[in-house]
Structures are given as C-alpha cells and as structure tokens.
C-alpha cells in the first residue's frame, strides 16, 4: 500500500499553508486501518483538502521507514509546516493528534 492524497488548491496562499504528512502503516493490521480512518476524518474536518498525505506500508518499504526513524507503526509524521511532529498509535486520541498537528483551538 502506498497512497498519496493530494489536494492542490488554486490559491497560492493555500498551497503554502498545505500540511504535508506521512503515515506509516503495517498493511491491513487493525490499528493501521484505524489510524488511516481517524486521520482521514481529522483531515476532512480540519484541513478541508489542504493537505498532502502519503501512506507508506512498512512491509513494502521497511528500509525507508527505518531511515525515517520509525520504530513502531502506525506512526504519523508531520513534515510541514514546521515544527515537525511525530505521533505513534492508532490516532484515536483526537485532541492529542490535533495538538501535535498544531490544529487545536482552530475552528474547522
């Protein structure tokens, strides 16, 4: 599984504000499936398409995951805007995920 979801708004300011994330998952394992669903729900509600999400299956690309410092999956990395952040687990703790992504307190 390697999937990219990219929404490219026409407004340059919106492009600059785009959040870039990478989610490492373990195939169809339950927490991985849960993490994808939780993250997609958060993105839909809070980022309204202004995000770029790459999903990397560690069974297909373990060396890439290791090179990126991933130890366990699911693991979400926020690459931009800075500061970068990493969240481990199935992303069911919504407030923790929003805090890590810098989205807490922002109205959807």
């Amino acid at each position, binding site marked *: 599984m390697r999937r990219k979801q990219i929404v490219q708004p026409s407004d340059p300011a919106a492009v600059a504000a785009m959040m870039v994330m990478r989610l490492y*998952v*373990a*195939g*169809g*394992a*339950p*927490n*991985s499936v849960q993490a994808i669903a939780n993250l997609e729900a958060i993105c839909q509600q809070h980022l309204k398409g202004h995000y770029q999400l790459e999903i990397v299956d*560690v*069974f297909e690309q*373990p*060396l890439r*995951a*290791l090179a990126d410092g*991933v*130890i*366990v*999956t*699911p*693991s979400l990395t926020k690459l931009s805007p800075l500061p970068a952040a990493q969240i*481990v*687990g*199935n992303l*069911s703790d919504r407030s923790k995920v929003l805090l890590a992504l810098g989205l807490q307190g922002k109205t959807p």
Partner: protein
Amino acid sequence: MTTACPGSKAEADHLEAETAFAAFIRRLAHDAATLRAIKSGKVDAILDPASGRAILLPEAREALRRGAAPTNQILATLPREEYQRLLAAGLEPVTLALGEVLHEPGELIRQIYFPNESLLVSLVTRIQNHGALEIALVGSEGMVGLPVAQGIGTASVRAVAQGTGTALRMEAARFCEALGTCLALQRALHRYTHALIAQITQTAACNCFHQVEARLARWLLMASDRLQSNLIRFTHEWLADLLGVRRVGVTVAASALQQQRLIQYSRGNITILDREGLKASACECYQKIKDIFDRA
C-alpha cells in the same frame, strides 16, 4: 487456533516462545515512549534495524489471521466488506472437539457455525429404541444452525462435531441482525438451504434402499470432499451410528472396500486409496448430492 494443555510440554514451549518474543520486542523498543505505545495496544508492528524487516505484534497477527479469507465456502463467496461486517458483529473463530454437541433437538439454537475445511458436523436424528441416524453432513460447504436464518430459533436435530476442527461461530441473535443487511449471505444461504434439503432427501432414500457398502463409500467420499483430504478419522462405532447399522455391518463393508484396495483403515484412520474406484462402489446418491451442491 491452537491451544496447549496446561502443564504440557507444548504449553511450556509456547510460554518459552512468548517470553523470548517479548524480550526481543523490549530490545527493539529501547525507549520508554515506544514501550508505552506497544503496551497501549495501539500499534501493530515494530521495525527491526538488524534485519531491515517489519515484525507484526502477536495481537495484530492474530487479528489478521481472523480476518484472512475463510475456508468456509459460504463465507468465502461474500464480498470482503460483508465478511468484515460479520466479523465486526461477532463472528469469531472456535475450535470444536470430537463429539461436541452444538445443539440438541428441541433446544434453542444459541450459536451458528460455519465449519472450516478441518471440521465435519453431523446432523443426527434419534428414534426411540433404535440408534442414531445421520440425516445430513455439514462441512466447509455449509452452516450449522440454518433454521436461524429462516427465523426458526429451535433445533429439530442434534448437531455433533465429527472430529476436532475449527469453525467460525456467531451468536444466533447477532447473526439474525447481521443477516438483514448482508444480501450476498442471504443469497448464499438460500442456495445452501436448497442443497441441504436435497442432501437430506437423497440420504433418506439412500438409507432405505442401498446396501451398507455403497452407503459407506458414499459417506467417505462426501466426508473427503468436505475435509479436502483423503484421510478421515473415524471409528466403526461412529460410522455404524451415522449409517444406522450395527457395528459388524460397518466392519464387513469396510473390509470389502479395503480388500478391493479402495481404502485402508487402521485404529480409527480411514485413508481413501482409489477415489475413482470408491466412486464406482458408491451408490448413485453421492454424485446426485454432489451435482446439486456444485450447481447451487
């Protein structure tokens, strides 16, 4: 799913392997945050820098195993989403032992079962002052507890496991709820109901008109088809009960089939040596029942 007897060598080996795996995980997850994440049960896999591989944690492996394509043919025909819906509604793997009774006549059917390839279940009726008689054989092609799918909660026959094997089981009430939204399962069960009725009808005629040797050959072929194996574990007493004859009748019939080198039996194991030859010895009922199941 395998289980080890408490105190057995198998259990000791299992515990040793679990302890070694836990130590291995602790070595990989060297920081407290990663260990906390693993303990929380919210992660699936850990990456091993030494081997460059991702390793599934036991819970995730078990969940994937449960979610893997089932060997029961009814469940195997379902769209993946529908099968996943059944799993979410409580469909769970279970291991059944030889002689385990799944339901008795007149009792409420509490659970329904989809046998896997390793399991055979006999539907048996008992006549006062006579023995038991098998009226149908259910294996990986079918389901035990079929009346529930027709809205009937009470069993009319005894269902008994003929050997140790695995099945997927679900509470009858939850199954009924789930069935309402699973159209592919409804269609599959309509077809299976037709085939099962045909099997019962043919078996009734077969028990009345055909010789024990031909009936035994039919039964062995049916069991072999459902188990996907030429090895069938049975004793003469069991077979006598299933075919509704005396033990000596089964012994004579089995000896005749063995002398023709069609089967070999010893200590409860029956091996089919010559399938085509056994088909020739079986009554017409085997092929008739098989054709109906194949068409259904």
